[in-house]
C-alpha cells in the first residue's frame, strides 16, 4: 500500500511552515502562490531542506522522524526530485546524466540508461550535452534520469514553468504518458490550477505555510471552502457576506441579497462566484440578480471579459463569456441582469 505521510514543521526567518500531507493517491498536487511554502515542503521531503520537527514516511519507510532522531540523507531517501530548471549536469552528455544516479559506469548500467532514453524517445541524443536540447527534451532527460533509479516517490517542482506556453500544454499531456507505468506516488507542486486539475487526484492547497484545504481535486475545485483556496482555484469574484437567516445571505460588495435553498453556515465570511458561471437575463429582474452596469470590456482570443460596476468601486464583478453564449449576446444585445446560480455559489471562510 503506497502512502505518503509528511508532517513538516520548520521556522526560518519570519516564516513558519506547518504542513501535513497525508495521501494514498498516486498523483498528488500541491497548489500555492510563490512563497507559500510549497517548494520548501517538497525539498523537505527530499531531504535537501532541513526540518525542525515532524515525521516523513514514504511507502512504509521512515525518512525523517524528529522524536526518533531519524534523518536520512537525501542519498538514502530514494526520492526522485525534478527541479524547476531540471538541473541537468551541464558538462555531462545526456547518457552520462541518466547514468549519474546508477553508481558504476559499467555496461549493464549503460544499457539500463539507454533503455530508459529509448522509452522517453531520446535515443539518438545520448551524446548531446543538455545545453543542446530544447526545453521539452531536457525535461524528458530529467525524468529519465529520475526514473532509471527506480524511486519510491517522485517530486515535481513546477515542472512546466520553464517552458513556453505551446510546449507547456504538450508536456502536460506527455508527462502523464511518461508516468503511466510508474506505480509509485508522484507529488507535483505548482501555482497553476490548470496543471494540477489535469494532473492530480488529490489536491492540497497551501497558503502562508499552512494547508488550508485538501481533498479530492474535483471536490476542492467545486467547494474550496476557503477564500484563498477559491482564489487559487481561479475564482474571480468575491464579496463580503452577511448572513441574514438560514437561507438568506447579503453579498454586500455586489449590493444583492441571495436566497439559497441550501442551509447557509453561520460562520461564512465571504461569497465567491466564478466568472464563467453567470446567466444573462433580459427584461424583468429575477431572484439573485445583479444589475448589468457595464464598466468596460476586454477582448481575448477566445473569450470576452465584461466588467460590471457594483456597490464597491474597487471590485467590479467580472463575467467571462465564450462561444455560443457570446453569439446570443451579439444577437440580443447586452443583458439587463446577471443571474447568480445557486449551485455555483461558493460559501467561504477567511
Amino acid at each position: 500500500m503506497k502512502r505518503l505521510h509528511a508532517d513538516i514543521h520548520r521556522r526560518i526567518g519570519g516564516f513558519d511552515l506547518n504542513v501535513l500531507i497525508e495521501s494514498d493517491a498516486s498523483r498528488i498536487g500541491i497548489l500555492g502562490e510563490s512563497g507559500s511554502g510549497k517548494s520548501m515542503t517538497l525539498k523537505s521531503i527530499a531531504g535537501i531542506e532541513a526540518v525542525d520537527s515532524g515525521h516523513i514516511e514514504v511507502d512504509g519507510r521512515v525518512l525523517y522522524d524528529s522524536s526518533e532522531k531519524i534523518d536520512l540523507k537525501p542519498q538514502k531517501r530514494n526520492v526522485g526530485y525534478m527541479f524547476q530548471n531540471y538541473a541537468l549536469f551541464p558538462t555531462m552528455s545526456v547518457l552520462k546524466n541518466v547514468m549519474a544516479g546508477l553508481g558504476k559506469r559499467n555496461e549493464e548500467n549503460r544499457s539500463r540508461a539507454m533503455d530508459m532514453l529509448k522509452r522517453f524517445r531520446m535515443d539518438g541524443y545520448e551524446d548531446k550535452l543538455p545545453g543542446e536540447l530544447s526545453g521539452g527534451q531536457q525535461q524528458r532527460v530529467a525524468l529519465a534520469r529520475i526514473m532509471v533509479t527506480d524511486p519510491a516517490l517522485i517530486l515535481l517542482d513546477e515542472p512546466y514553468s520553464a517552458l513556453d506556453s505551446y510546449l507547456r500544454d504538450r508536456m502536460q499531456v506527455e508527462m502523464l504518458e511518461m508516468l503511466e507505468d510508474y506505480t509509485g506516488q508522484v507529488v507535483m507542486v505548482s501555482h497553476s490550477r490548470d496543471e494540477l486539475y489535469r494532473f492530480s487526484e488529490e489536491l492540497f492547497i497551501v497558503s502562508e505555510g499552512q494547508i488550508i484545504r485538501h481533498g479530492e481535486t474535483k471536490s476542492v475545485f467545486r467547494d474550496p471552502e476557503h477564500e484563498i483556496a477559491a482564489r487559487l482555484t481561479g475564482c474571480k469574484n468575491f464579496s463580503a457576506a452577511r448572513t441574514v437567516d438560514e437561507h438568506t445571505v447579503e453579498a454586500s460588495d455586489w449590493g444583492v441579497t441571495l436566497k439559497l435553498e441550501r442551509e447557509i453556515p453561520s460562520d461564512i465570511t465571504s461569497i465567491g462566484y466564478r466568472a464563467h458561471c453567470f446567466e444573462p437575463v433580459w427584461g424583468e429582474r429575477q431572484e439573485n440578480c445583479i444589475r448589468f452596469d457595464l464598466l468596460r470590456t476586454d477582448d481575448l482570443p477566445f473569450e470576452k471579459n465584461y466588467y460590471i460596476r457594483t456597490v464597491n468601486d474597487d471590485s467590479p464583478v467580472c463575467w467571462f463569456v465564450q462561444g455560443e453564449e457570446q453569439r446570443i449576446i451579439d444577437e440580443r444585445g447586452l443583458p439587463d441582469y446577471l443571474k447568480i446560480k445557486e449551485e455555483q455559489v461558493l460559501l467561504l471562510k477567511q
Partner: protein
Amino acid sequence: MNGFIDLAKTLDWSPLWISLKTGVVATIISFFLGLWAARKVIRRDYRVKSILDGILTLPMVLPPTVAGFFLLLIFSRRRPFGIFLNDTFDIQVVHTWLGCIIAATVIAFPLMYRNARAAFEQIDANLVYAGRTLGMSEFSIFWRIVVPTAGPGIASGTILTFARAMGEYGATSMLAGNIPGKTGTVSQRIAMVIQDGDYLTAGFWVVIVLIIAFFAIFLINMITGKHMKNVRKW
C-alpha cells in the same frame, strides 16, 4: 643578438628548472588546498566567511617580505617549530628547495582559492541537490559535477597560481635564499645579475619570463574562451 646566442650556450640553466619545478609543485599543492578551502568557506555563514576569507587571502595582499618574515618566524631552525621539524623528521626548510616550495605556495595559494571560490559560488545549487537526490556520494558530486562545471574558473585560477608561484621573489629570497643550483630561481637570478651590472644576462632571463607569462595568459583565454562562445558582446 649574437651575444644572446653565445650566452644561451654557456648559460647556467638551473634557475629555469628550479623555477619550473617550484611552480609545478606549488601549483599542485595549491590546487587541492585551494579547492578544499573554497568548498569549506562557501558553506559558512557570512561572518565566519569574511574572517576565514580574510585570513586565506592575506598572503596575496601582504608584501611578500612580510609573508617571508612570518615564514622565517615559523620555520627558522632557532624557533620551536623549526627545531621540532629538524629534530623529529630531519626536515630543514630554511635555505632549501622545500623553502622555495613553501614560500611559493603560501604566496600563490590565494589566487587558486579565490578563483575556485568565485567559480563555486556561480554554481546552481540545484545541481548539487540533484546529485544528492540521485544518490551520488558527496565525493563524486564534487569531482564529477561541481569541479567540471566550475572548470573555466578553476583552470584560470590554476594557471595564475602557476605563474605567480614561478615568479615568486620576496618571500623566497628570505626563506630559501639564493643558492645557485639549489634555491636560485629565475627572479632571484635576474636581481642578482643586475646588481653585478650584467644587463645582457638579465635581459635574457627577462625574455624567457615574458614568454612564459604571455603563454600562461594565452592559455587561460583559450580555456575560458571556449566556454564563452555564447556570451553576447556588448
